[in-house]
């Protein structure tokens, strides 16, 4: 999308909703090196959320939207669940169709956008919960990886079905007592990151959303690698504080606890050699560009 397409017509500018005016004037569409640090100084692409107070998914949404390399040319594919309550507030086009078919939708969408816009990189990003990704949708999730579909899959792992009221899911930890697991879950948390690696993902990251810089790096790597090489997967722990009996302010602590040594979400990455080369070259380019920009700014100041 060209940035001109979101300019306001002068005659009607004053009657546009203020949040839209802000979006046009102060959002970061098309800004190179956009990232989580823009939060607070620019208009975010998420207007508000309708999740529970303190829900880590809401901050995850903000970090992801701030980290997308090119939101002006990105389409999200969601699924049913808590995330589908947020997407209507997001200033990036997004599709909700059914529960669990998100990677099938994304496969058709990505191929079509590639055919229709051969000269523009249109990023497709799937964002769905763990029930959609692993249980009802596992077939389509994995098949899209087998087929090497070039888009990013992000899973908000809250280790249960949150939107329906806290039922057991495949990514729930063993022994956890939940609805539909009245005696505690009887089998281990599905090792989705390893499955993703074996199924053909070129870049896999598993982490919590406690540290925005790490989320930004994972999202950018995943999108860049998906453009050039093949499918990528990011699994983010976004605990459902409501269903695990925590308070609104305790989400961050829960994530930090789970990522310490021995925890379920110690950060891990699986990167193919080819993907690593690409990530390194992009990092090197970015460094050179930022340095040059800094020097130019300095020179301008002196001049």
């Amino acid at each position, binding site marked *: 999308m060209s940035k001109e397409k979101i300019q306001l017509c002068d005659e009607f500018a004053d009657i546009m909703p203020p949040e839209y005016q802000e979006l046009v004037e102060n959002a970061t569409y098309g800004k190179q090196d956009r990232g989580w640090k823009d939060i607070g100084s620019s208009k975010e692409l998420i207007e508000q959320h309708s999740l529970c107070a303190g829900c880590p998914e809401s901050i995850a949404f903000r970090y992801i939207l701030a980290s997308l390399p090119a939101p002006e040319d990105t389409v999200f594919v969601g699924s049913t669940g808590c995330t589908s309550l947020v997407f*209507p507030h997001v200033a*990036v086009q997004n599709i909700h*169709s059914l529960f669990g078919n998100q990677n*099938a939708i994304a496969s*058709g969408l990505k191929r079509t956008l590639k*055919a*229709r816009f051969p000269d523009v990189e*249109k990023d497709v990003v799937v964002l769905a919960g763990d029930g959609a990704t692993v249980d009802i949708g596992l077939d389509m999730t994995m*098949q899209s990886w087998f087929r090497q579909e070039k888009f990013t899959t992000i899973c908000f792992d809250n280790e249960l079905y949150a939107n329906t009221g806290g039922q057991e899911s495949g990514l729930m930890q063993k022994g956890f007592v939940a609805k539909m697991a009245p005696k505690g879950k009887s089998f281990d948390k599905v090792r989705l990151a390893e499955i993703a690696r074996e199924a053909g993902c070129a870049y896999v990251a598993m982490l919590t959303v406690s540290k925005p810089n790490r989320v930004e790096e994972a999202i950018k790597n995943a999108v860049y690698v998906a453009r050039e090489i093949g499918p990528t997967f990011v699994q983010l722990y976004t605990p459902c504080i409501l269903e695990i009996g925590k308070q609104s302010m305790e989400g961050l602590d829960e994530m930090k606890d789970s990522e310490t040594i021995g925890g379920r979400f110690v950060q891990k990455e699986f990167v193919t050699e080819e993907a690593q080369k690409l990530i390194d070259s992009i990092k090197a380019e970015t460094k050179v560009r930022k340095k040059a920009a800094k020097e130019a700014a300095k020179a301008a100041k002196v001049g």
Partner: protein
Amino acid sequence: MNKPVSTEKRIIASKHVELGQKNAKGQTYTDINDIFYNSEQKPVFFTGSEVIKEAIRRSSVGTSVAYPITPQSEAAALIGELYAEGYLDEYFRGESEFAVMGQCAGAAFGGHRVFTTTAGPGTLRAMENFPMWAGSRLPIQVCVTCRGVNSPLSIQPDTLEMHYLLETGMLVWHAETAQDLFDFILKGFIVAEQPDVHVPIATCCDGFFVTHTKDTVQLPSEDLCLTPYDPYKSPVTVMDMESAPIRMMRDPFVMKSNYISYATHASWQQEVHAAVERSRKHTIALLGGLIDEINTDREILIVSSGTAVSQSREAIRLLEQEGIKVGLVKIKTIRPFPTEEIRQVTKNAKHIFVPEFNVAGWLAREIKAIIPDNDRVYVGPHVAGGMTMPSEVIRDEIKQHLGMKVDTLGSRG
């Protein structure tokens, strides 16, 4: 609703690509009316599956997704050959019909003209997608080569699955012959993609009877093709980030259990059904009416769809030999249903027979629901599970119902 529409008015396909321009395969983008009514048609002797291929060759399709299930596997594979020759942008095998219909939806959300095929159990496995296509206003075309629904396992022709499609919000057309199928596929894209329609279409045919038998079909030159789909004529936004993203709603529907959210959902569904109704005027212009009729002034009528119509034509000839005069109504579109047309043509009928290839007799039920004095409708004859319906069976069942002596029932089944 269902007002008489003039057939004079020509249908207008999208003109965003200049007519007369050539595509990468050297085909000329041609107006749908010119393809059918102003160009030379040449006869070929092809199977229904080959006819599907020839229709898609001329349809400027962007994406097709395939999955094997009898009896559509051959057609789906032949479309793959077209892809290999460069007629389509994208083609691949999905992992199940549920996934395939999702992949088709993704391609349509992205702005492609999309075609796929399925049958029987595949139609049912895909079912959740069809109302989603309609609700998302995706004008995808699925060719349903009808076969039996399990259990017990059957791969034979049976039109039961069409009954399941009736309330999905899709257009549902029923081809009698391979010629119908060819015409319906090309015309179906154009009707389904009209901005005031823009809903999916199921072009149904009877598996094996149409797909696996050879028939003479008149085809326009393969150098002609439809103008491609114009995604920017869609009544809903195409998901390509080429238009400004808007905040769709302040309160997502599912968040609020209140009257407004229910009313929003209800009115959206009403609009989908209204869109199906609005397809009438375009369909009449291209198909020459939602029904075909022969001698409908007679007291005995057969009203039917699909290959049951072909069997009925022969039954009518047999009855005529015995001096029994029977008229025929062929229903081409099941959705929208030709309510007014059927009321009109059955006005003077005393006996209405509805031969069908399914156990439910759903077409007879549809007809019973819309005409006065519906005890005139005789539900049958109908066969199921792949049984054939010889014309003699139709003849004898009509005679029996009329209280006439029947010589033999030996050919039944």
